[in-house]
């Protein structure tokens, strides 16, 4: 899907649990049936170079903006709500899904008219809950490092494409 750019998963405290560059996930994978860990490792291993500092700053900005907009939305809303759903700028659109536990799934996409709420909801229930929370080897609050999780994400993003691509087929 050429419209989707990035996915961020934060816990309630603002710690980044998962980051995915969706264009790379869908179109540039090795295609040999083995999920790549490349994009995931950028969040786990920090070499201290400038790119990573920029990335970490960007991550903090994203969480900060979403946190501020969330409290702003709660103040502005005529009836009580939990959080806003999305905001659109001239270049991109940020959609957010916040679970009751405080886990936030944030999707950056092109500024189109599509509603990514259902996609984020299914990402939460079919990918995060299944492969992170129900995973006995996953400790809460730690970055998600699970090939099956990444494969499920690829499947869910790929299902948005009009025709299923080879990336989503199992070996």
């Amino acid at each position: 899907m050429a419209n989707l750019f990035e996915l961020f998963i934060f816990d309630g405290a603002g710690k980044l649990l998962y980051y995915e560059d969706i264009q790379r996930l869908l179109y540039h994978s090795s295609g040999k049936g083995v999920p790549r860990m490349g994009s995931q490792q950028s969040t786990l291993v920090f070499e201290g170079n400038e790119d990573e500092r920029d990335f970490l700053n960007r991550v903090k900005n994203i969480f900060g903006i979403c946190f501020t907009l969330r409290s702003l939305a709660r103040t502005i809303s005529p009836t009580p709500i939990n959080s806003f759903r999305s905001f659109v700028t001239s270049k991109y659109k940020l959609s957010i899904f916040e679970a009751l536990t405080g886990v936030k799934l944030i999707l950056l996409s092109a500024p189109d008219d599509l509603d990514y709420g259902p996609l984020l909801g299914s990402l939460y229930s079919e990918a995060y809950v299944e492969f992170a929370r129900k995973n006995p080897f996953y400790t809460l609050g730690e970055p998600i490092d699970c090939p099956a999780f990444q494969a499920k994400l690829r499947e869910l993003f790929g299902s948005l494409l009009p025709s299923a691509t080879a990336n989503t087929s199992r070996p």
Partner: protein
Amino acid sequence: MQIKEKQVYYLFIVSTNGGLIYDKKFSSIPLDKRERMNSDAMMSIASSLHTIHDLCSLITPPSLQKLDKSSETMIPKKVKLETVISDTFRLSCFETLTGLKFIIITSLQSPDCRPLLKQMYELYADYVSKDPYHPADQPIKNATFERLVTALFTD
């Protein structure tokens, strides 16, 4: 184009340095909420929106940033906050070339508000900017402007 008054909740005009210069609450807001939204709350909302608008450019995806660098000729296009959508309201923001922001908060059923914000900008240009008694970037205390803005919304 006119929007029904019952679909609008708030109107803000935020100056270039982030201060609130005009705000309007509509009667479609529930009474308890309206009482809690005093001028301090409105000012902090306006300042937060001003800051968020500026910070939006910091989180553009890298693939779009690269596109910008390769194709920009003279002036890079600034990233502007346009809409914020939630379950109960839609916030539309229109920023002029000078950095003045017109913000309207409506219900989800209201039509697109950008033409209305541009009309407000025209009213601002005609009745506020050209008002010799109005100091720049100060809260607007102009009865004519108030009357004309109210007239933009039908019943």
